[in-house]
Structures are given as C-alpha cells and as structure tokens.
C-alpha cells in the first residue's frame, strides 16, 4: 500500500503536471447590477442624439425632450391624475373581480368532478376567443360606460386564472393531502390549510400573466367611448398625430405595468417567504 503511494509520488516529479481543466462553468444566471439602468439611459441617449442630429425624423419619432414636455404638460394640466385614476380604477375592479371569480371556479373545477365536467369544456371553448372581439357585445350588454370596460378586463383575467388555479391544485403534493386525511382533518380544513397554500405559488405566477392581459385589455376597452383613461388619451393623441403625447401615454402605461409587476413581486415575497 505505502509502496504504491511513494511510487506515484516519484512519477509526478518526473512527468508533466498540469491542473485538471475546469468544465463546470456556465448555465448559471447571476445578477449584473447597474447594467439595466445603463441600457435604459443608453437607449434614451441614442434616441436623443438621433433626434437632435436629424438621423431620426421628428415625424417618425418625436424627440425625448418633446415627449417629456408633453408629459409635463399633461401633469401640469391636472389631466394626468384624471386619466391614471380612471384607468387604475377599472384595472383594480376588473382584475380583482376576475381573479376572485377565476380562483373560485378554478378551485371548483379542481375539487369536484361535477364542476369539472360542467365548466372545464366551457372554459376550454371560450378561453381562446379574443375578448376584444366581444367588446361590442359587452357594450350592448353592460352599457357604453364603465360596465363594458370592467367586463372586458374581468373576462380576460378570469380564464387564465381558472386555468392557473386548477392546474395548481392538480399539482399539489398528493402525499400532503393524504397526510391531512390520515389525521382526520375535515374537507374544508384540507382545502384551506393544505390545498390552497400548496397551490398559491402557481396561482401567484398566474397573476403575472393575468395582470398583463388586464393592462392590454384596459387600453383596448378605453379606446371605445371613454372620456378619461390612458387608453383614451393615447387614442386621441394618435388620431391627432400628436406623437409626443402618444409616447408620453405609452410611457405611463409602461410605468403602470412596472408598478403592477413590482406589487406582484412583493406579494410573492410575502406569501411565499417559506420557500428558499
């Protein structure tokens, strides 16, 4: 035994020794701080340079200065708040009611064979219909006012939430449910304490999809017969060829989207803090 050890030692001293090549790198996404703000600033600088040098024609894209000015005008006139509050109100009502309905029906589909047989084919049939196509119908059913706009968002949010919820419940660890049964927990306890929390991660990631659908439908719905709302503002700017205002409106929409995704991120961190 000791012989062979000394043997190898003498061998290494005479032969070429080099480190084992490392092959385990890559495929791991790290964080690169500060790069993302640089991308934004860089794009805006390029845009600014393009507009001032004449490389980008003002008809094609207004300069960042003009767009900022349009935004400041909008804010100073007090209309910004009116548009944003009208939009946010529709978004909150439509998304919340769509989500509550979606989670309830999703849970029903996941937990009862009767509900699954009833609703699952319906959901599958109506899900792929673009809700914007139904907007004229909603105007007739719910009126040209808030009703039709909220209904469009509600329907748009409802279907993906149903799918996310019942998929999530189907994927809850069966052994946890069996554990609940083995301790004699009631049906409602198993649903509230085991199934719902177990499904929550997937339901919350469904929220990201449903929230972006809600914003898209919000703008589409506001393009029909809305006095206030960011969608109405963008539509008006577009039809007047006021591209600077259009850009300002789009920026507000983008900020709205970022805020929503930030809020969902916060909710995930709070509700899923038990995860690593």
């Amino acid at each position, binding site marked *: 035994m000791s012989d062979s050890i000394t043997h190898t030692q003498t061998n290494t001293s005479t032969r070429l020794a080099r480190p084992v090549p490392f092959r385990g790198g890559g495929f791991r996404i790290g964080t690169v701080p500060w790069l993302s703000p640089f991308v934004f600033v860089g794009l805006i600088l390029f845009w600014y340079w393009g507009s001032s040098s004449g490389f980008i024609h003002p008809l094609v894209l207004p300069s960042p200065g003009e767009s900022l000015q349009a935004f400041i005008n909008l804010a100073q006139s007090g209309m910004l708040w009116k548009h944003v509050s009208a939009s946010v109100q529709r978004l909150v009502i439509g998304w919340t009611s769509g989500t509550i309905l979606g989670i309830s029906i999703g849970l029903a589909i996941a937990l009862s064979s009767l509900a699954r047989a009833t609703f699952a084919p319906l959901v599958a049939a109506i899900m792929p219909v673009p809700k914007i196509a139904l907007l004229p119908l909603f105007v007739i059913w719910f009126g040209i006012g808030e009703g039709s706009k909220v209904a469009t968002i509600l329907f748009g949010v409802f279907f993906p939430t149903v799918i996310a919820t019942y998929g999530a419940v189907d994927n809850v660890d069966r*052994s946890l449910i*069996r*554990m*609940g049964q083995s301790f*004699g927990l009631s049906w409602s306890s198993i649903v509230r304490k085991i199934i719902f929390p177990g499904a929550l991660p997937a339901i919350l990631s469904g929220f990201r999809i449903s929230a972006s659908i809600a914003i898209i439908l919000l703008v589409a719905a506001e393009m029909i017969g809305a006095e206030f709302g960011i969608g109405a503002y963008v539509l008006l700017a577009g039809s007047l060829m006021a591209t600077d205002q259009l850009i300002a409106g789009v920026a507000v929409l983008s900020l709205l989207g970022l805020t929503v995704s930030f809020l969902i991120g916060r909710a995930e961190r709070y509700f899923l803090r038990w995860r690593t």
Partner: protein
Amino acid sequence: MDLSLNNIHHFYGDVEILSGINFEIKSGEIVCIIGPSGCGKSTLLRFLGGLERPSSGEVLQIGSPPEACLNPLTYIFQDFALLPWRTVEGNISLALEDHRIPKQEIERIIDNVLGRTKLTDFRSALPRQLSGGMKQRVAIARALCVNPAVLLMDEPLSALDSQTRELLMDDLVDLWTRERFTACYVTHNLAEAVRLGHKIVVLSRRPGKIREIVSIDTPLADRKNDLVKLEQQQNHLWNLMREEALAADMELNDV
C-alpha cells in the same frame, strides 16, 4: 386497542397484490412488516389506517381506543409530509386544530411533544431549515400530539442517511421503553426490523403472502448489547427473503 387483519386480498386491475393476509397487532407491541420491493407492504399499511380499502377481507379494531386519543390510527410517512409553509409548531398544531381544543391546551400539548422529541429549540423553524432527521422528528412529534392508539410507520427512516437512522432508531427504542406505544412498522431494512420489532411479518414477493411471522423476545432496550444474536436473526430473515428479493428484482414493473 388491538388491530386484526382478516383474510386480506387486494387487486389492482387484474394483478393480485396481496393474498390471504392474516395477523394481529396487539396493544403495546411493534409489528414490523418486511418484504421485497413491490410486495404490497405499504398498501397493507394504508389498509390498516383506512386510507385505502382492500378488495376483500377486513381490518378490525378490537376494543376501543383510550379516551384521550384524538386520532387512534396515526401515520408517520417516509417523506415526512410536513407542510413547508408552516413552522414546526404550526405543523404540529395542524393535527390539533380540528378538535376544538382551547388555545392554551394546544400550547401545552405542543410544548410536551416538542420536549419528548427534543425539538424545543426548533419550535419556530421552517421545514426547509431542518435536516432530514429533524424533519422526521417533527413528524413523530406531530403523530404523538394526537395520542395515537397505534402508530403506522411507512418506512420512516428510509429517506435518512445511515448515521441519522441509527440515532432515530435509538430514539424510537427509548420512546417505546418509556411509553409502550403500539406500532406497525413497514420497512425493507432488516436491521431496523430486528432492532424494533417484537413480531416480524415476512411477506413474499407479489402477490404478497405471509412467508413467516418471526417473534423476537429480547427486550428492545437490550438488543443492541447482543450484536451476535441480532446478526443471527437478521441472517435468518435474509435467508427467508433472499430468493424473493432476487425474483422481485427481475420483475417488470407495469402495474
């Protein structure tokens, strides 16, 4: 409270899983069930606790469970089955919440079982922070908090490394010596069976039949001191199982 299995047969579709199983679990004894993989030992345990029904035959409770018993037939699972979003305390209280026990009483029971399983310092830890052995301790604490009449253990140590397994086995022996609980213990590990079992039911490969029931009279606490005897008993079990295990290993799994 005793449990008795009467002539249990079970089929999945056309495949016979268990055939003519008869034995009894007497109060205060640990009955181990061993057998090659796929012989239906876990299925048998699910029959014992009423989580599944056999195709024919019945499982009988003889006598009634003690008054203070909240959940007479209580499982301990191989994969621990802890809720990852609840703390150690929350996981234990889950088993008590449906019984309308006053808050203070719940607190007292939790304190008590945490003490008995040496978990007092981990009361507010989340499962992901715990090692495998600790998680199984929590599951044992959760099972003890409902004062079970019979503990049904489904390979409780199989997901643990061998050092932890050794430690937990000692803990189980201590616990039994103090409290004389009744248990049915399913395992494929012969060492666990000869250390913990008063009676060892050896099943054959599918369809699972009782090959032999081995009784070991040495008190649990003394078994570690007589390693030679332990080894002999283990060898005897292995001889019973060897060919079955070999044949079971060659079978195609399509049920």
